[in-house]
């Protein structure tokens, strides 16, 4: 399997020598299992490329956001190799958007803003997402995630749905996806959800990868000591200084 897998990788990458490629294609013609494996590998490559591009787009949006707030992007460098970039191209800072394993320390303090589904107001959410909320109330998080993931592909402007999906990702430990959702809500400047998304973003970023967006939100919050989140953000700032 390992040798065949290596050949599939070389073939799909277009790195095979011509003779070997002709031979491999002949094998594919004769062996449907091999053909299927090549197709599966191609699909996976496309899925991964989509993910890389999604992450890069978030990274570029973070840089744009940092530009708008006149705050240079900052990074915690994980790989400390010396860089040799031409003088004309050297940037002041780097933003890291890597996924980092989850830890519970700050989340356990219950400062994350979750959605309150116990409200008796019938009009709290659009009726279209009632089915999704019902899944949540029944503890069916996986079905709820499927529902809201599908819903927002057709209703990307519904920030309640976007925030709920982020909240679900927090509950199911998919922190990278949760961060992306909170970023969507923040970028949309949702009147209802923006502040909750911002504090959640800060808490998640503190544990899983600080970036320019988190820095910008923190600095903004600290300007107003009357804000309900001020004390929490002060704690976050202190934790940041310890790191």
């Amino acid at each position, binding site marked *: *399997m*390992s040798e065949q*897998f290596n050949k599939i990788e070389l073939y799909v990458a277009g790195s095979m020598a011509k003779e070997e490629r002709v031979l491999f294609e002949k094998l594919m013609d004769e062996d449907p299992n091999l053909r*299927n*494996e090549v*197709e*599966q*590998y191609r*699909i*996976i*490559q*496309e*899925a*991964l*490329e*989509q*993910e*890389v*591009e999604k*992450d*890069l*787009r978030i*990274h*570029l*949006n973070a*840089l*744009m956001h940092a530009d708008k707030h006149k705050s240079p*992007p900052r*990074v915690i*460098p*994980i*790989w400390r*190799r010396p*860089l040799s*970039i031409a003088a*004309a*191209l*050297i*940037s*002041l*800072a*780097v*933003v*890291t958007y*890597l*996924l*980092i*394993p989850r830890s519970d320390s700050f989340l356990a303090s219950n400062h994350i803003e979750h959605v309150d589904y116990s409200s008796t107001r019938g009009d709290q959410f659009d009726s279209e997402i009632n089915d999704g909320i019902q899944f949540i109330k029944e503890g069916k998080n996986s079905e709820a995630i499927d529902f809201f*993931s*599908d819903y927002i*592909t057709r209703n990307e402007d519904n920030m309640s749905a976007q925030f709920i999906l982020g909240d679900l990702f927090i509950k199911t*430990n*998919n922190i*990278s996806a949760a961060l992306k959702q909170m970023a969507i809500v923040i970028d949309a400047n949702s009147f209802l959800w923006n502040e909750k998304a911002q504090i959640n973003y800060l808490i998640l970023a503190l544990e899983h990868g600080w970036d320019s967006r988190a820095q910008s939100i923190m600095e903004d919050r600290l300007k107003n000591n009357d804000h309900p989140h001020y004390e929490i953000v002060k704690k976050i700032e202190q934790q940041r200084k310890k790191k």
Partner: protein
Amino acid sequence: MISKGGHARLNAINAIYTNLELSKKIKNHVVRKGGDAAEAQDVFHDGIIALDRNIREQKFKGQTSIEGYLFSICRNVWNNRWRQRSKMSNNEIQDYQLKTSQSSDDNIIQEQRKEHLSTVLQLIDEKCQKILTLWKASYSMEEIAITCNLSSAQLAKKYRFRCMNKLMKKLADRPNLIQALRNV
């Protein structure tokens, strides 16, 4: 730098992004050719994403400067967008409606494909998703080991193969998903 992958790639992308002269040149081009500021920003981002992909796939061989290459990409991105827009402003109403509907159908199909592809990665756990995504973004095995708390580059390489095999097996068990991707 981008071809080295990992953090060197990120550094290079940030350097390109913060090259004010280059970003201004690209955005001014879009605005001169009928776009607005938001479209110019979009085109700039799309251009960097395409540049990154082309370098990782070794389609850019360094024949021109990075700046020149990026400008060409962005110019093509904008030309394509403009062509799409021009098709939509056809005088014949029936043609307009047909082209609008075709364009919407194309978008729906594209979105469906994106959704199916997202489902593919959900077939494996987050750690494997992370390892494979970092590998795809051309991070070295040393960097992947450090980021994913693995003890060595060798172990990271093993995990990469293991995760890829796991994903291929899981995908093979989802013929409906594969068929759905064939259909879009």
